[in-house]
């Protein structure tokens, strides 16, 4: 059976509109006094207070490259991240490691590694796909610049953000 919704009949004093005004004022003034008396906490005062201390472990910020204990760049320029990146933010130019280098057996390293931070969507697929544990999403979130060129993170910038990370699997280590 269909349910019939009755339109409520307003009382004469409800037609006056004034009780509704008083009710509305109670709601708004309630919020007003809660805020003014400091009982209710409002938004974080951004530049002074930041999320930094409250950031969860799984936060996905700017992607960055890392070096290992021997200061070797972990990236072997396999380009998997470049291919999986949904917005195509990553551009890698691989180069061969010369045979007289200490790490010659690694064979490849990135000559240039650019991440366009205007395109990056912080999805974390690059970190997930990396077979070398070379790229990580860090907790930096305020990536700003005054030009498009400035917003492209090149290799040195990426290593600067990433820094050295220890305790990872050392595939190419003599001590393995």
């Amino acid at each position, binding site marked *: 059976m269909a349910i019939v919704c009755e339109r409520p009949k307003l009382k004469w004093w409800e037609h006056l509109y004034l009780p509704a005004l008083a009710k509305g004022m109670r709601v708004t003034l309630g919020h007003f006094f809660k*805020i003014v008396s400091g009982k209710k906490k409002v*938004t974080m005062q951004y530049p002074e207070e930041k999320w930094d201390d409250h950031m969860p472990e799984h936060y996905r910020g700017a992607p960055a490259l890392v070096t290992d204990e021997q200061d070797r760049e972990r990236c072997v320029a396999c380009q998997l991240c470049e291919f999986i990146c949904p917005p195509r933010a990553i551009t890698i130019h691989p180069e061969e490691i010369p045979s007289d280098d200490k790490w010659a057996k690694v064979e490849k390293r990135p000559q240039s590694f650019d991440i366009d931070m205007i395109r990056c969507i912080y999805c974390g697929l690059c970190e997930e796909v990396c077979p070398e544990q070379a790229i990580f999403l860090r907790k930096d979130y305020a990536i700003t610049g005054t030009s498009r060129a400035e917003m492209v993170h090149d290799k040195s910038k990426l290593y600067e953000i990433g820094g050295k990370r220890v305790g990872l699997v050392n595939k190419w280590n003599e001590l393995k």
Partner: protein
Amino acid sequence: MDWQLIIASVIKIVGFVFLTTLPLVALSVWAERRVSAAIQDRVGPNRVGPLGLLQPVADGIKFLLKEDFTPSHVRKGYFWLAPALTMVPALMTCAVLPFGSKIFGEKMVIADLDVGPLFVFAIASLTVYGIVLAGWASNSKYPFLGGVRSTSQMISYEISLGLSVVPLIMIYGDLNLGRIVQNQAEHGWALLPLWGEGLSLKGFILAIPVFISFIIFTTSMFAETNRLPFDLPECETELVAGYHTEYSSMKFALFFLGEYAAMIIGSGLAVTLFFGGWSLPFGWLTPESVDAEVPWWHGLIHIGTFFAKVIAFILFFIVVRWTLPRFRYDQLMRLGWVFFFEIALFNVVLTAILLIIFK
């Protein structure tokens, strides 16, 4: 020429209009933003100066430095005239508001007219020309619709605004705002007859038509100043920004400030008529008569009282704005013509009958 009168008037004009009302306009813009923020659980502008109090200054600088763009399709003369026509009448009505009793033998009112409320209505109704001209001269759709709406709205509500004051004038038997305030100071405010002659059966019963008047007056004032429950001339969801869509820079600021100036003058008038103007409650520090001398510090207290009341009323304006949703246009017209007009007329008759009974 009476040099003393001229000098005193100039001091009063500069002091009241330029050094008090205009800063109050800026302050009420700030208050509007802070109060609305608090109501919506936000913070509001708190960066410029202590508590963000210098925010209006920053806004003013921004408005002055922005490009003043005049679209090519507008009627230039009227287009430039319109913002001034909204701001100037709003400030001109300051002239008859008594903002204090007396300081050093000078009445604290710029022009002690014997037709105070009439002057206010006459000048305030000029504001509509600014909006009409803005809507028409902009020569585009949204401003035109906003201008048309505003015209009909303001003309409709002027009637109930004028009629709602008639009962008060009948009760006081006077059109001079200074004497009306003096009367209220001695015999109880129109809405709070709790001392003097007001503390009687007559006073309490006459408070009923005064209360009806007050509701009609305040609501019509909202409509006249295009404040939120009745801000149909500029309602942004339908008309972009209404009559000031085509305006930029300082011309827009003039419309914006004109609205707030009208709000302050409206509050001043409501306070003067219904809440005893500059007088303190319970007849404290009341002068003997309108022309009696008062110590200068009494005068200062009276000025402070007036502005405290005005500010409280402005806060009421602001809270109502962030409480009520906008009316539909036919509801607005219905409220003005079918309800307020009739109730105001009935109220005049009721007051007359009550005045005959309690002669």
